[in-house]
């Protein structure tokens, strides 16, 4: 399988990439790690006239801390996320989820920015971003704007990103004391997309849940934030009965597509089970267990 023909551009700066995007418009596609776009091009689901490869823009890679936030270049690879001591200590949900994405070779190429900007509900980072209150930096010809993850994902392969904009950086607040987290993903085999997955990050004040974010992967046309489930648990001492009620609320917003991973009922049920497991594990971690 070989992709259709295209003109190839490999800019070395963000400005050059944005100039190309503005000039070439809707017929251009941005190439990040290539493990979603190239297979789609090989199968002719995508047939861009122009390809803008970001792999030669060194400035788009790297992880650093600034003012209580972790800044991650959009072209940072999954394996770089996993290896980052800074993330393990200050945004541990992210490397935990990255380990469950694809396989070692794919993680050498696949990038956090590509995973987010593709708008695929089967990708794992969108839910992780919703659970960790991430903010995205989008750069276009008119300058840059910052958009919260909550509100970025509009539909299947459809995000807030305009056709002349580039996702350049992901910013995630450093976790505070008493934070617990978990990413629970059900998959048929290594490398598979989630049948269902849940990302949870919560903060305890004593035994009381001060704040909790719950987000679901592959349970609807976009990653979902389970806000009613969050509201149910906020301000409470979480017990098994509450966890089950929260899972029911999470299941109520699921709208998965039937495919080889299962029918709608099964996937919704598994989204509930992943929610239960992720809340339990996040709680245990917040309590230092």
């Amino acid at each position, binding site marked *: *399988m*070989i*992709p*259709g*023909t*295209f*003109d*190839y551009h*490999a800019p070395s700066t963000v400005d050059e990439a944005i100039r190309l995007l503005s000039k070439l418009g809707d017929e251009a596609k941005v190439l990040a790690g*290539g*493990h979603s776009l*190239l*297979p789609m*091009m*090989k199968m002719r689901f995508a047939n861009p006239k122009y*390809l803008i*490869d970001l*792999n030669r823009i060194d400035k788009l890679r790297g992880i650093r801390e600034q003012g209580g936030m972790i800044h991650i270049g959009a072209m940072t690879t999954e394996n770089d996320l996993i290896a980052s001591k800074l993330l393990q200590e200050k945004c541990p949900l992210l490397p935990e989820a990255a380990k469950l994405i*694809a*396989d*070692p*070779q*794919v993680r*050498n*190429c696949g990038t956090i920015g590509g995973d987010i900007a593709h708008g695929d509900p089967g990708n794992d980072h969108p839910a992780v971003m919703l659970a960790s209150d991430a903010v995205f930096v989008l750069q276009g010809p008119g300058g840059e704007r910052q958009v919260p993850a909550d509100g970025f994902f509009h539909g299947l392969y459809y995000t807030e990103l305009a056709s002349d904009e580039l996702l350049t950086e992901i910013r995630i607040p450093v976790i505070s004391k008493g934070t617990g987290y978990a990413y629970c993903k059900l998959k048929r085999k*290594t*490398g598979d997309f989630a049948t269902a997955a849940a990302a949870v990050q919560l903060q305890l004040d004593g035994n009381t849940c001060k704040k909790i974010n719950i987000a679901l992967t592959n349970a609807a046309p976009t990653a979902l934030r389970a806000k009613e489930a969050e509201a149910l648990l906020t301000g409470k001492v979480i017990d098994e009965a509450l966890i089950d009620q929260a899972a029911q609320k999470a299941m109520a917003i699921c709208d998965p597509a039937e495919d080889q991973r299962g029918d709608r009922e099964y996937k919704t049920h598994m989204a509930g089970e992943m929610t239960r497991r992720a809340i339990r594990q996040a709680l245990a971690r917040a309590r230092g267990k």
Partner: protein
Amino acid sequence: MANKPISFTLNGEQVETLVETRELLIHVLREQLRQTGSHIGCETSHCGACTVDLNGKSVKSCTVLAVQADGGKVLTVEGLAQNGTLHPLQEGFMQEHGLQCGFCTPGMLMRSYRFLQENPKPTDDEVRMGMSGNLCRCTGYMNIVKAVQSAAKKIQTTGGK
């Protein structure tokens, strides 16, 4: 569509060739440069038969454009043996029966080559995780794990790569 000249290091030697921008690295390696050790399996980046080393990292060469290798360093299974001596991994796969039909073996060798540099003393579980991007339909993997462990020990004792 104009062809684009690219050059890269292949198994220690500088190569130059003309490629279409849409050509994948695996196709250029096999069809233009006649290095047919790397195999085309699934073509959808699942099976790992096309695994090569690009700039010190394992990649699936069916999902990398050849133009992306321009200026880079590529190592394929043809570059593993040195001066007629098999690499410890090649010895290991042979001695431990780490292959049956052999189709996945070039990818297995190239992934385990890089994996043992990332993790020189792995546990069996770590071998399985590290090799999880490579599928074998014959062996059941037991002997592949043994082969990688046998090479790891040999490399440790001889200080080779």
